[in-house]
């Protein structure tokens, strides 16, 4: 029963990691670089809710989620417009380093405004349901439902809509997409929006489950990076699988090693994957979002 409980905790956390990973992998598949500032979108999502829930706004927690998501979308579009778009013709390494710099800037911004201490939301939303010995909190349930909902929407978007098909075409080849008359700039903006919405909502839910800490972005960024590598870089369904695997492995791991080392799992996995299967589980020679 204890292991089953850990497994469920793992699936819940993994679903949210998958949300982060999918944003990261989609940005990669279109722009060909890993956005290290992605973690800061997660952290700003969590802190954004805190911002709008406390004075001078003092909105109820649930209502604060929406302006927070809008704020994170604005940050994502700004970073694209001011940093990544002007650099789009340079080497991927340049973009990578720019994104690392950007992550420091955004993290320091958080610390400047909110301080370096731990925060948590003022809410009484911590009750749990008892399923014959298995405890699932409402927060976990919300995390699970949201992850499923977002992935269903994403699937429909990518396979049924013209915008989704255009996004997949752009990730196959930006140049050919231009020749086909696909509005590549609009598609780019759309990819950033999806990445931001997924990051902000996941960030809020994880912070609701634990706490807010200015370094949270970095931790989750590393975990989603591991998930992306595990599933195969640029592969949306690989990111889902990778996220779930990371969540399950790190939670099951707490049965054997101290929970203090929980975050170790992601790092070890990154090294192991890069050594033995650099193309990831679902990775193949054909690149692009599938």
């Amino acid at each position, binding site marked *: 029963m204890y292991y089953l409980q850990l497994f469920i905790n793992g699936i819940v956390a993994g679903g949210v990691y998958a949300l982060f990973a999918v944003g990261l992998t989609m940005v990669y598949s279109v722009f060909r670089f890993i956005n290290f500032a992605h973690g800061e979108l997660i952290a700003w999502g969590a802190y954004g809710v805190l911002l709008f829930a406390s004075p001078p706004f003092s909105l109820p927690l649930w209502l604060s989620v929406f302006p927070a998501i809008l704020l994170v979308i604005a940050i994502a579009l700004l970073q694209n417009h001011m940093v990544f778009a002007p650099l789009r013709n340079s080497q991927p390494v340049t973009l990578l380093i720019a994104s690392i710099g950007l992550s420091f800037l955004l993290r320091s911004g958080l610390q400047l405004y909110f301080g370096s201490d731990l925060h948590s939301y003022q809410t009484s939303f911590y009750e749990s349901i008892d399923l014959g010995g298995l405890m699932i909190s409402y927060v976990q349930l919300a995390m699970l439902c949201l992850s499923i909902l977002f992935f269903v929407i994403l699937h429909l978007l990518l396979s049924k809509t013209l915008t989704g*098909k255009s996004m997949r075409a752009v990730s*196959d*080849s930006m140049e*050919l997409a231009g020749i*086909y*008359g696909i509005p590549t700039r609009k598609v780019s903006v759309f990819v950033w929006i999806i990445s931001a919405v997924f990051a902000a909502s996941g960030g809020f839910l994880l912070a609701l489950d634990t706490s807010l800490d200015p370094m949270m972005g970095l931790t989750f960024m590393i975990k989603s990076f591991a998930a992306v590598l595990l599933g195969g870089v640029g592969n949306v369904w690989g990111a889902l699988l990778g996220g779930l695997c990371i969540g399950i492995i790190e939670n099951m791991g707490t049965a054997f090693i101290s929970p203090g080392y929980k975050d170790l799992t992601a790092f070890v996995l990154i090294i192991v994957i890069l050594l033995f299967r650099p193309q990831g589980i679902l990775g193949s020679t054909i690149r*692009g979002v599938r």
Partner: protein
Amino acid sequence: MLKLESITAGYGELTVLSELNIVVNKGETVCLIGPNGAGKSTVLRVVAGQLLPTKGKVLFNNQDISRTDCTHKIEQGILFVPQGRNVFPSLSLLENLNLCQIFISESLFQERLDTVLTTFPWMKEKLHSPAGSLSGGLRQMLALSRIFLLKPKLVLLDEPSLGLSPLVVDDIFSTISTLNQQGISFLLVEQNARKGLSVANRGYVLESGQNRLTGSGQELLVNSEVTRLYLGG
């Protein structure tokens, strides 16, 4: 219909086309031949809007279109089918065709899709497989399907026979002739000069970005210089 007036273009410091003049009349198939590096593909890229000319004008129905992008060109009726990788491998055949819906309505798409499936009956069974699984010849036909769907006025076709077996090449060229008879003009770049000139009304021989010779397809086919240089004897 299409008129290139003393076009100069290139990549960075490198000038590929200098003071080039080319005309394509309505309903014509015009073939560009010439050695590698003569700038044949660059001509198409300039007309398609992928590359901006540094000097000169591209006129389409007497309108200056030198500075408009690919999207705008398609709206005006100029379709570019590039060489080699010209479909999206991870999208299914149907999804590749779906991308035409950026320009045409759902009902028009369905109607014209029927024409595509009658022309290429093999597509029916493969509509939902990824385009990356197709052979080179079938991929070229998938790329050409866009002509049926978008009904452009002018098609810019870059090396349609590249890497294909002679039998498939014949198929592709007969498709081009059929489309041409329906009133669609073609500006064709072809390595296989004999094949290209045989379907062309007129041809241009390019050399180092300049227009060296011009004439009807038949004239060029029997021209002693062209025969010696490009038709292998």
